[in-house]
């Protein structure tokens, strides 16, 4: 793998890389945004629905990326926060007739609180132990949602059906297209806020903790506070994604939010590149489309094909999609010379 390592060390020698390491350049961002705005005008409704899910899962992976790539804490429990967000939106919309757009900030706040509280006991754990504790959370969540005590709100095992919102202001747009653009606006906002956060004093505190807790503390960083804040922020963003997911899928049920979903999000983060925010959306595309591709190759062995594809990606690109971006940037720089 020495060739790959060479690439990684060379990249460090390029002056511009560390500063932009978290994001894309302005030009690339504009191209991607234009594509995201224009493509839905030319494709079928089902593809639009898939693009919506890509953005939603992308936001959930981004949230995990802030936690793991930013503050260095692992989580296999993101499905639990996603579930809390989804149920918060669904319950508010269906039981209390709240406007769908207004349910999202509520879902975010509820999950921020849940994540912040969960982060308190998690402070005593790190690395694989923290991953296990969050794993426990993910395992417990579907059963908690089925509890008879909550049934009048959650619908128990049946779950809840959510009404898809119509396009507002008399816009001539199908529900799917409207929901896509609505999701896109929220995704872009969350992405921009996340980039701002990671580039700010708080973001530097997260990364300082990730790199060296004792040194961070000596610089005045309240390690316990920032670790729980990272959990809160990550859970809050995941909650918004969960709320959007409930609206897009029009249905919430306990068994949609199992540990498998948490592992898929984790996978998305690794494939996209840990700590590289744009990679979150590439990782999200991977977890949405690659299982389908595997199924097309072989129906009976789709799991095995998926495994092989995943193995290839991890073997060839240990730094995830970020590696392709770095190589691309270097090629561009070489061409300009």
């Amino acid at each position, binding site marked *: 793998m020495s060739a790959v390592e060479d690439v990684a060390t060379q990249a460090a*020698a390029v002056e511009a890389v*560390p*500063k932009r390491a978290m994001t894309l350049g302005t030009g690339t961002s504009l191209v991607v945004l234009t594509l995201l705005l224009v493509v839905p005008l030319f494709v079928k409704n089902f593809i639009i629905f898939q693009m919506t899910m890509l953005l939603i899962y992308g936001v959930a992976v981004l949230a995990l990326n802030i936690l793991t790539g930013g503050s260095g804490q692992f989580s296999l429990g993101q499905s639990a926060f996603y579930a809390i967000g989804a149920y918060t939106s669904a319950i508010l919309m269906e039981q209390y007739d709240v406007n769908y757009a207004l349910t999202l900030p509520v879902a975010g706040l509820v999950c921020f609180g849940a994540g912040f509280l969960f982060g308190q006991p998690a402070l005593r754990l790190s690395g694989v132990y923290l991953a296990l504790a969050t794993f426990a959370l993910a395992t417990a969540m579907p059963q908690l949602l089925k509890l008879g005590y909550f049934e009048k709100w959650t619908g128990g095992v049946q779950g809840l059906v959510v009404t898809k919102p119509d396009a507002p202001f008399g816009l001539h747009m199908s529900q799917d297209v409207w929901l896509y653009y609505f999701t896109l606006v929220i995704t872009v906002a969350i992405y921009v806020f996340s980039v701002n956060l990671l580039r*700010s*004093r708080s973001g530097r505190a997260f*990364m300082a903790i990730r790199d060296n807790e004792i*040194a961070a503390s000596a*610089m005045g960083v309240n390690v316990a506070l920032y670790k729980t804040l990272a959990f809160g922020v990550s859970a809050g963003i995941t909650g918004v994604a969960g709320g959007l997911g409930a609206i897009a899928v029009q249905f919430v049920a306990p068994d949609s939010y199992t540990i498998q979903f948490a592992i898929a999000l984790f996978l998305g983060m690794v494939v996209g590149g840990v700590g590289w925010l744009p990679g979150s959306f590439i990782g999200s595309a991977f977890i949405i489309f690659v299982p389908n591709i595997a199924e097309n190759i072989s129906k009976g062995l789709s799991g095995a094909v998926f495994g092989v594809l995943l193995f290839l990606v991890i073997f060839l690109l240990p730094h995830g999609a970020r590696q392709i971006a770095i190589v691309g940037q270097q090629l561009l720089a070489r061409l300009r010379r």
Partner: protein
Amino acid sequence: MTQAELAPRHDPLLAVREVSVHFGGIVALNGVSFNMLQGQILGLIGPNGAGKTTLFNCLSRLYQPSSGDILMEGVSILSRPPHRIAEIGIGRTFQNVALFPNLSVLDNVRVGTHARTRSDIVSDSLKLNWVRHGESAMNKKVHEILAYLDLEEVAHKPVAGLPFGTQKRVELARALAADPKILLLDEPAGGLNHEEVYVLGDLIKRIRDDRKVTVLLVEHHMGLVMSIADHVVALNFGRKLAEGTPAQVQADPDVIRAYLGSKDQ
């Protein structure tokens, strides 16, 4: 700056009073006391296991003394958690360099300003106006420090790939970014060659003079301590062995015995 020039200020900036530390049955420090005056470079020396690092860790609040007190400008620091030490003006470097390896030199030094700046996650995410102003003032200061320590050329490079000597300068820059009144240096000469040690010695003196910082130097390298310290405290087996000017301490028979062993051993 000599001792005489500092004479008008009699109040110690930092006072270590009868500090003892026990680990189970082992006495790591036993009633150690000394004062640090404003503008001094105080060298803390002693053979391995003398208690230098233990004392250092009490000052940076990683250890809690079993008894005794440590006063900064007359106020005890013992009730402060480690992350609230930087804000009262105590900065430190680490024995084997503890930087943030994945961050650039610039970001490492920016983290150094954490204790002197304010923000919250909401304002940071929204990049509110007051946050922008704070960041630009902070960046100005950080660049001034980078220029002062000759680090501007490597400002955007990740620290992990830099030479050891440069990493030590980055650590100094990071500590200075918090405007410390006292700088605790834990074996700064470790891992440096002969020439680099004397460059470092000059740098420490220059920092003391230019930036009005008082320095506590915990060091093995006798040459460095004797050439730049104004005042030396020697420890052995957790007790204070001798205290005074470098010349006095060097001539002290107890110190000589601790370092070289006595004749009848």
